[in-house]
């Protein structure tokens, strides 16, 4: 592969210097000290399911400094949503979970706003509530959370709402391939099991926050600490605005992991009503309750196997608790089926159901459907391997497809580094060698592995504008998000490479819905592939324009001109680089100094290249889930874990965690490695510590960083024990062969840890997180049983 000056090298991260100085302006700094700023606060429902009988805001409105107290009657009547329009900005009649927004307040100070919220009097008629997804799914469930569901608008994926088996079921996604029943009948072994994962949340360090500035011309500018377009578009829908009536802006975000903007609908609403700028910063508790967290999922897996170890059929039933509102839920549910691309599955049946319950609404979180399902399937692969008497690695290798095959959904497998990744991590962890056991007999050590993939959806697009300034500076405008993963650095590398200029000659403008070109946004591990490709096209476009103009001016052919180094040169004289200003009107011979300083060209205001990259998605058959091109790329990889289980306390410690993933082309080795390390540690958190705990009334009991445990330095392996390998199997459509990789590292971790726990102590934990209580309970059950899998 060609050597590059910037691409593929660990160049300085463009945003890091300002960040270490504490000078980066995050959105949470926006509006501090701004004259006339009001502060917003929301009143959340204390009940899981209730009818609002009466709201008395008079005491709240009387608090000194309060400028607005708004309730459901002040918000648009139309319901809004991402995939199913099932929600009002503030509840109008019914509250559906503890935390459903009932009213909001704007006041001259945060203290006054909090006091006013406390004084809003709401009379509720309590309704019976339901929290368990399997119970809520029943056709005769006595609690119906959205009685009007059949009439709700479904802007996208309407087919997932047909023939629903119960009144609380909002989604049914299907994939069908081959004849599953016949394959099961002919199989030598059938392996079945049930897996479950509790709800988790992003815990991005910057709390959800927003500022809205109403403008004198009737428009408004809303700042979001979340993604630009995923915030902008729902606000337009919710408020019935045109894109030119609302300007949405963002900055570097203080973490993302899939989180979706929350307070923006309230800052905009309050700013519209008061005509004043409004700032809101959610408390950490509000982050937990109002954040669109990772959904809770029950996954039933049934595999049919031949004695030789081939999987002949797989059936999956997913029951997904998306909480009281759907948001991205139906899409998360659908995308769970992408896991199946990992293996050669000649017969496959997938039924995933989305269920309403009276719990907080869910949304996207790193892994978007994949991590939840892979948690089940990668443990199940170990059960399968046991059933056929094969080594888990051998068994996985046997069933892993090669490039050129069609996956379960019908998408062509173009590059797949899975086998290489599996070999790398298994070699490093010395697979096959038993773990050293410590002297304390109550500590047992074991190893486990898991494979994973993470898709990037094909049905998205990105666009980039590249301006070449008179001084040769390249200004990239994009509509993606840099939440720390390094998008702006990667785009700078690409532009510097394309034009042979130092990275300092590149500058990035982003995060402004009025200025940034369209983008689906940073999601689905897509930014490098999509925005990178759009940028390369924009570079080509700009170079073409420069060649044409220079050739015309110099009386040569386009082909004689080369572009780069901050200007252009004649192919046969690369030593003499013409500056861009050579083309400026100021340097036109007829100008004779009269348009001094003019930086425009004679023919145009400047050099502006544009580029669009679209995934050209294939249509998905609603009955079979088959589609020619549903994902544009998959990041494939493997992880190996070694864990120590304390059989007296149930505490699991990760001793070593190794990861290998196929990036296609690693654009920036150290940043990529760092992002993977972060994903692995988030994976450890989801495996061992993180999970929402509700009481019997549906109240979240641990909405803070004390009782909801995020990994700290004390909980994770470090140095060579947290180790990443990046494998390059170039993607035919990727920029320089690169494909997305941001989410993948989190996907196999929980299963690798679970498989290692089994290897250490012979118990299989099937519910996330694998807390000491759950480990101890499993060990206790084991003492009653023998040391075998319950499922085989």
């Amino acid at each position, binding site marked *: 592969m060609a050597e590059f000056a910037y691409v593929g090298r*660990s160049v*300085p*991260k463009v*945003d*890091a*210097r300002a*960040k*270490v*100085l*504490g*000078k*980066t*302006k*995050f959105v*949470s*700094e926006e509006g*501090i*000290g701004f004259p006339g700023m009001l502060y917003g606060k929301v009143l959340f429902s204390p009940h899981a399911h209730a009818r609002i009988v009466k709201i008395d805001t008079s005491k709240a409105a009387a608090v000194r400094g309060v400028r607005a107290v708004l309730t459901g009657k002040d918000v648009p009547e139309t319901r809004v949503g991402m995939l199913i329009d099932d929600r009002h900005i503030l509840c109008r009649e019914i509250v559906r979970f503890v935390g459903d927004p009932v009213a909001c307040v704007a006041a001259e100070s945060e203290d006054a706003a909090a006091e006013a919220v406390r004084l809003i009097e709401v009379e509720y008629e309590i309704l019976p509530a339901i929290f368990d997804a399997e119970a809520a799914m029943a056709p005769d469930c006595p609690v119906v959370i959205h009685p009007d569901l059949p009439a709700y608008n479904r802007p996208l994926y309407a087919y997932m709402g047909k023939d629903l088996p119960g009144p609380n079921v909002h989604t049914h996604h299907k994939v069908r391939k081959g004849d599953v029943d016949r394959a099961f009948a002919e199989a030598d072994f059938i392996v079945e099991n049930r897996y479950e994962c509790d709800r988790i949340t*992003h*815990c*991005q*360090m*910057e*709390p959800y926050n927003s500022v809205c500035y109403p403008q004198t011309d009737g428009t408004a500018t809303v700042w979001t600490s979340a993604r630009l377009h995923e915030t902008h578009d729902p606000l337009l829908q919710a408020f019935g605005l045109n894109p030119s009536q609302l300007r949405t802006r963002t900055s*570097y*975000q*203080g*973490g*993302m*992991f899939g989180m979706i903007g929350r307070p923006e609908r309230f800052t905009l609403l309050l700013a519209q009503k008061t005509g004043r700028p409004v700032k809101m*910063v959610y*408390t*950490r508790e509000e982050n937990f309750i109002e954040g669109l967290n990772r959904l809770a999922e029950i996954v039933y897996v049934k595999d049919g196997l031949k004695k030789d170890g081939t999987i002949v059929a797989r059936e999956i039933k997913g029951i997904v608790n998306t909480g009281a509102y759907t948001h991205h839920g139906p899409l998360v549910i659908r995308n769970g089926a992408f896991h199946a691309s990992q293996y050669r599955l000649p017969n496959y049946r997938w039924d995933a159901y989305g269920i309403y319950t009276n719990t907080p609404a869910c949304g996207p979180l790193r892994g978007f459907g994949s991590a939840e399902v892979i948690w089940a399937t990668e443990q199940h692969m170990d059960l399968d391997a046991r059933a056929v008497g094969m080594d888990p690695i051998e068994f996985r290798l046997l069933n892993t497809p090669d490039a050129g095959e069609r996956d379960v959904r019908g998408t062509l497998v173009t590059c797949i580094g899975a086998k290489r990744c599996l070999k790398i991590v298994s070699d490093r962890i010395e697979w096959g060698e038993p773990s050293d056991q410590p002297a304390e007999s109550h500590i047992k050590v074991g190893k486990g592995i898991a494979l994973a993939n993470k898709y990037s959806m094909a049905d998205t697009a990105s666009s980039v504008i590249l301006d070449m300034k008179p001084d040769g500076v390249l200004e990239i405008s994009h509509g993606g998000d840099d*939440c*720390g*993963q*390094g998008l702006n650095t990667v785009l700078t590398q690409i532009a510097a490479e394309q034009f042979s200029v130092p990275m300092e000659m590149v500058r990035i403008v982003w995060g402004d819905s009025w200025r940034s070109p369209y983008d689906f946004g940073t999601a689905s591990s897509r930014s490098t592939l999509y925005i990178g490709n759009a940028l390369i096209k924009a570079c080509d476009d700009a170079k073409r324009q420069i060649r044409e103009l220079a050739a015309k001016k110099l009386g040569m052919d386009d082909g004689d001109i080369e572009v780069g180094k901050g200007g252009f040169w004649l192919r046969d004289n690369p030593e003499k680089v013409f500056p861009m200003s050579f083309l400026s009107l100021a340097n036109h011979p007829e100008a004779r100094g009269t348009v001094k300083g003019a930086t425009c060209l004679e023919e145009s205001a400047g050099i502006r290249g544009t580029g669009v990259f679209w995934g050209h998605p294939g249509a998905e058959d609603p009955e079979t889930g088959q589609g020619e091109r549903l994902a544009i790329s998959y990041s494939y990889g493997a992880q190996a874990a070694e864990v120590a289980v304390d059989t007296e306390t149930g505490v699991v410690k990760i001793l070593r965690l190794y990861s290998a993933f196929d990036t296609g082309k690693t654009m920036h080795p*150290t*940043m990529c490695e*760092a*992002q993977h*390390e*972060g*994903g*692995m*540690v*988030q994976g450890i958190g989801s495996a061992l510590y993180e999970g929402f705990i509700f009481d019997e009334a549906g109240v979240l009991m641990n909405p*803070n*960083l*004390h009782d909801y445990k*995020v*990994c*700290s*330095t*004390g909980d*994770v392996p*470090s*140095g060579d024990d*947290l180790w990443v390998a990046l494998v390059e199997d170039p993607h035919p459509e990727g920029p320089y062969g690169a494909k997305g990789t941001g989410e993948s590292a989190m996907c196999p971790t929980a299963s690798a840890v679970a498989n290692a726990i089994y290897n250490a102590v012979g118990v299989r934990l099937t519910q996330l997180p694998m807390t000491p209580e759950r480990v101890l309970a499993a060990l206790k059950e084991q003492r009653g049983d023998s040391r075998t899998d319950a499922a085989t």
Partner: protein
Amino acid sequence: MRRPIELSVNGVTEEVYVEPWWTLARVLRDELGLTGTKVSCETGDCGACTVNIDGRAVRSCIYPVMKAVGKKIVTIEGLSGEDDSLHPLQQAFLDHFAVQCGYCTPGMVMSANALLQENPHPTEAEIKEGLKGNLCRCTGYNKIIQAVAAAASASAPNKEN
């Protein structure tokens, strides 16, 4: 009722008018404009708001501002030199790609600074122990631990702070 107090912040005596129940973080950010100090959990669990007070790492989001009177406060803005020349710890965070979103970074650097003043040559285990109260959701900590180790071996910490 707001009352005037004097705070020593980054070597400068600042007069501010505060409500006595305000936290130090609120005063640093909203009154003094020192927004390098971040607020994330408001319960002292995440460490994003860490500053140094008399050389020790303190969570400013739960530290009453009145308690800071008469003490030497150093924030991330006070660590760098003139013209934004980087403190060795800041340089090490930069060199080791210990920064992703950067929201935890100021607090992390200030915790590390206090750690190195107390223990200029910590082991990896001591670094992990010293940074246990600072949460980072992006990096997985590996690069941060490496950065602190590198800063410790490269130069003595700034005793002035």
